[in-house]
């Protein structure tokens, strides 16, 4: 084994005594070898990535400037470039505007709700006062690992106007429960609560990890200085947790902007389009065969997500 390096040692450039040209050649060969190794390691991923992600992203952009329909796939010559027509159409499309408003409401209400619940649970579990912490952690995380289809079945059962548990409980206290998912005013709020219920565990785990990086001495010092728990939370925990909170906010925001599965499995976008989201609208257009138009919609969504991420990076950047 040890003979290998000694055998190659004379071939290596050994300082100033080695003639210039061979040393340069060796170095060049080494550099080439290194590049080839790097590329060899990158190629398998790069090929898959290029074919199934990068090319589709570019194709999607090109598509969005055409009137491509599913029926044109066998006859590419029938496809026309229409410039920004699809984008112009989007902003005159009542259903697209409606779905945008629904999605923004979902993000604006859902993100803070999820974060507050997750933060409260994380702070409580981290306070050192709670027993069975593992039980709570695992329990709160359960919906995160569960298929949305199964969750939809359970929630449609819970929220059923007649036999559902929620309205049965309301009946116990003498209240006639509404028909939740079938009520245009209550369908979106129901989905927001369901999303918070589903994602709270994920954020809680992230926040718990963030809380554990706060040194315990800081709290001890604050307690000695006579700070109340609330003051400690406001003055210590929140500022120190800021990067984690922002991270959680952005991840949740990006996820909620792409809202699709919840309305798809729960309400099919109804009633009266009250739960139609941007992703859902795009999906419908894809289903109708309007590929170019669907692609334009997905790029608008993409820009919105990049915009949100940039705002986030701004906020993170201004930290120190």
């Amino acid at each position: 084994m040890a003979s290998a390096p000694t055998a190659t040692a004379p071939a290596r450039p050994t300082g100033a005594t080695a003639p210039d040209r061979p040393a340069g050649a060796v170095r060049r060969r080494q550099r080439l070898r290194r590049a080839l190794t790097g590329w060899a390691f990158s190629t398998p991923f790069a090929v898959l990535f290029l074919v199934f992600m990068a090319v589709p992203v570019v194709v999607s952009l090109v598509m969005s400037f055409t009137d491509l329909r599913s029926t044109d796939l066998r006859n590419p010559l029938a496809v026309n470039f229409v410039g920004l027509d699809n984008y112009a159409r989007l902003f005159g499309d009542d259903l697209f505007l409606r779905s945008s408003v629904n999605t923004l409401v979902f993000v604006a209400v859902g993100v803070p709700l999820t974060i507050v619940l997750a933060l409260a649970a994380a702070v409580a579990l981290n306070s050192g006062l709670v027993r069975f912490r593992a039980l709570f952690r695992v329990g709160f995380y359960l919906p995160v690992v569960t298929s949305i289809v199964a969750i939809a079945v359970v929630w449609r059962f819970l929220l059923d106007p007649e036999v559902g548990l929620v309205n049965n409980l309301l009946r116990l206290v003498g209240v006639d429960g509404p028909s939740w998912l079938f009520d245009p005013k209550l369908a979106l709020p129901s989905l927001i609560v369901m999303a918070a219920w589903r994602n709270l565990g994920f954020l809680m785990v992230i926040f718990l990890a963030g809380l554990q990086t706060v040194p315990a001495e800081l709290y001890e010092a604050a307690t000695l200085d006579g700070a109340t728990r609330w003051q400690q939370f406001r003055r210590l925990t929140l500022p120190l947790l800021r990067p984690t909170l922002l991270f959680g906010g952005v991840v949740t925001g990006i996820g909620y902007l792409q809202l699709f599965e919840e309305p798809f499995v729960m309400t099919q976008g109804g009633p009266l389009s009250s739960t139609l989201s941007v992703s859902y609208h795009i999906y419908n257009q894809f289903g109708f065969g309007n590929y170019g138009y669907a692609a334009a919609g997905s790029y608008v969504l993409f820009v919105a997500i990049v915009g949100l991420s940039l705002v986030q990076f701004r906020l993170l950047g201004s930290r120190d």
Partner: protein
Amino acid sequence: MATTPTARGLRQRDRVARTVLHVVLGLGLLAVVGPFVWMALSSVKPEAEIREVPPTWWPETVTLDNFRELFSRLDFPLYFFNSALVATAVTVGNLFFCSLLGYALAKLRYPGKRLLFLVVLGMLMVPGMVTFVPQFVLVSNMGLTNTYAGLILPFLAGPFGVFLMRQFLQSIPDDLIEAARVDGAGEFRIFWRVVLPLCRPALATLGILTFLASWNNFLWPLVVATTEDKYTLPVALALYSVGQNRTDFGLLLAGAVVVVLPVLVVFLFLQRHFLRGIATTGLK
């Protein structure tokens, strides 16, 4: 001493706080886990008892009829096999391809590396809907709709896995790799024999995350699997529940139990490792 009463006072305040916290968290836990328990309890009730108002909490009649009927109507063993096959293939692919590139990005020096990494990072922000339509057109042009290949190939490697593996691999000391090089090991041998065994925590996290995501993936298999023999569990349950009268809850709940149970078992076994992995990778 003066400290004794205040200490006792604090302890008493703590006891109150502790009780309040336990009650609030307990209610929260009930709200989160309760629906799952309710689902399991109701799935073994006969349909008539499910529809009873007010509801029976504990099943008065325990029956497996819902499961029996479901299994006779739907070929669950096949959907289970499909889900397991697709999720396993996707997981193995991600572990291999992502750690391979992660290693190159973290430990090798070659031209084009920076650009590659930037592209991978950029792709993290691309929403699924952007690639969805062209991906579907691509897969159908390749003649892969309604095939296992069509279900697996687009997910074999993803930017998140590369990012996670690169971050982890950067913490592995260069000296170790240098020592293996001096011993004359080839680069792939170093990667396979020296580096990968050190990556076990990261590989486990990526493996569990990928497997669960694939197991629960819904939209893509819904569109790509066009005949019943290629359905995955969620697709089968969704299509069944859409075509079903919405009051037929017994069968639907039994179906949900069948979809959730495998994931639940895996999660409960691996949760310790899993939750730590989420927390650390989420923060990096």
